């Protein structure tokens, strides 16, 4: 296998990132991976503000590229291609990344490779754990939640996904409702350790329906009602009630994800993969109880479980470089007229789940 070195650029949400990856006969190695987060810019607003994110990306991304090259000890002349997230995501940020990559590609003559952000997540288990096709992936983050059967570098079959919000978003909202800090995931998880998950029963939307689709929007509303009921009774939110609410919420998410994963695994195993494997990616995969429940489920089903290390599980540019490398090896590249796409489903054949309107499916 010829040695190829590729730059990756990522800017689809609130992380500006650049990475250098090299692949030769011995496999692919991340030579550098720089991520500049924007958490403090968005903190006061209780969620990612698209215009604030776009402004930051436009002035940070080229610095990330320079830092990634410098950490790898390489120059642009040592590269064989430039991969960039071309969607889906917050369009202002995606545009900044795509235009920066076009400028770099025009200037150097290196091939420009537009990458689907979701493909980056979906292929990461091959980079980190060498999983063989086909494997089942649960991508679960602040912006996404879907089951993908990854059949090869370019074929992803969606078995189901959220019909409204992503769980990461629900964790953030829960943290706000309970007066916990952002990002909500770690804060709710820590609070839940102090609580009784059984005292406040929250609904498990769509769990009574067949299939692998999920819903988290109603869970947020139910949590708000349960909190208000607790507060009305006690004249405020007690520490104990806050912990119980956090625990009850987390338990609901664990049960929804576990049951839907059980069904997705059954569908996946129908394809009789030789070495069945399941991977979970995305920021929510960092949640201990969720990870433990999925791991237990896989052990029961005789399916290998893998979860990439957190740095490659949350948004990063190494995964974009890795997914771009597959396209580069396949002889594919994009022109300087490459479009940035806010919506770009990985599995174009599947029925749209979210935003089936004029602009096409979001996910």
């Amino acid at each position, binding site marked *: 296998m010829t040695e190829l070195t590729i730059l990756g650029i990522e800017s689809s949400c609130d992380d500006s990132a650049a990475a250098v990856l090299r692949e030769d006969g011995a496999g692919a190695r991340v030579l550098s991976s720089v991520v500049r987060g924007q958490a403090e810019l968005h903190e006061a607003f209780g969620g990612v503000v698209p215009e604030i994110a776009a*402004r930051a990306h436009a002035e940070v991304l080229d610095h990330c590229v320079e830092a990634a090259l410098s950490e790898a000890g390489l120059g642009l002349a040592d590269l064989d291609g430039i991969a960039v997230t071309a969607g889906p995501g917050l369009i202002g940020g995606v545009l900044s990344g795509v235009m920066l990559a076009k400028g770099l590609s*025009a200037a150097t003559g290196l091939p420009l490779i537009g990458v689907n952000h979701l493909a980056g997540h979906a292929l990461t288990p091959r980079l980190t754990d060498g999983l063989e096709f086909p494997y089942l992936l649960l991508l679960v983050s602040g912006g996404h939640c879907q089951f993908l059967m990854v059949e090869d570098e370019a074929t992803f079959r969606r078995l189901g996904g959220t019909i409204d919000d992503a769980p990461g978003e629900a964790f953030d909202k829960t943290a706000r409702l309970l007066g916990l800090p952002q990002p909500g995931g770690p804060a709710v998880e820590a609070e839940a350790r102090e609580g009784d998950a059984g005292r406040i029963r929250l609904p498990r939307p769509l769990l009574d329906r067949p299939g692998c689709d999920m819903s988290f929007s109603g869970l947020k509303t139910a949590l708000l009602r349960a909190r208000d009921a607790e507060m009305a009774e006690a004249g405020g939110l007690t520490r104990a009630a806050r912990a119980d609410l956090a625990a009850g919420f987390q338990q609901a998410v664990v049960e929804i994800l576990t049951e839907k994963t059980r069904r997705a695994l059954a569908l996946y195993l129908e394809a009789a993969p030789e070495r069945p494997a399941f991977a979970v990616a995305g920021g929510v995969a960092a949640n201990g109880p969720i990870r433990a429940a999925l791991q237990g489920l896989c052990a029961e089903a005789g399916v290998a479980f893998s979860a990439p290390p957190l740095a490659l599980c949350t948004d990063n540019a190494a995964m974009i470089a890795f997914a771009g490398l597959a396209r580069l090896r396949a002889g594919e590249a994009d022109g300087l007229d490459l479009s940035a796409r806010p919506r770009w489903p990985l599995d174009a054949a599947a029925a749209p789940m979210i935003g089936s309107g004029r602009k096409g499916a979001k996910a």
Partner: protein
Amino acid sequence: MTPILAIDTSAAHCAAALRLEGRVPARVEPMAKGQAERLMPFLEDLLADEGLGWRDLAAIGVGCGPGNFTGLRIGVSAARGLALGLGIPAVGVSGFEAAAHGLPRPLTVALPAPRAHLWTQRLTGDGAEPPALLAAAEAGEVVHGPDAEALVRAIAEIAALRAATPQPRPAPLYVRPADAAPPRDPAPVLIG
């Protein structure tokens, strides 16, 4: 310093100028959308018509606005990528400076802003007051200034003057902070 490529996508167009020895060919393509797809091929065409390639460039000038936020980021990001890739300076030039190029100062420049407003800035001898956003009705008499083609030529000229000394990286001039409101749900009152 030549050749210098100037780029402007601050309004509903792709505009470019090429500062060569003794002349500055420029072109403007109006478009309501699609700047991100069109900009690079548009610039390549301009270069090719002069028998030039990207690697012949000595510096890049880019219009930083104020103007359409997305358009500003398209131009600035492309300019920063080109500058990094070519190892040449990129110079950000505001729309106020471009419109006032070659005119006696002090001078107040007004640029069209959305919803019947104007971006304004008073340019003095060698400095400038902070830019502002003003309702068009409050602006008094406004003299029509240079068109998009003249503006992008001015960006090329100003970039040529500045490129010899170290410049900060181009950054969009937004004037207005991002529209963002704190969350609607207030934090609960904790007791006990």
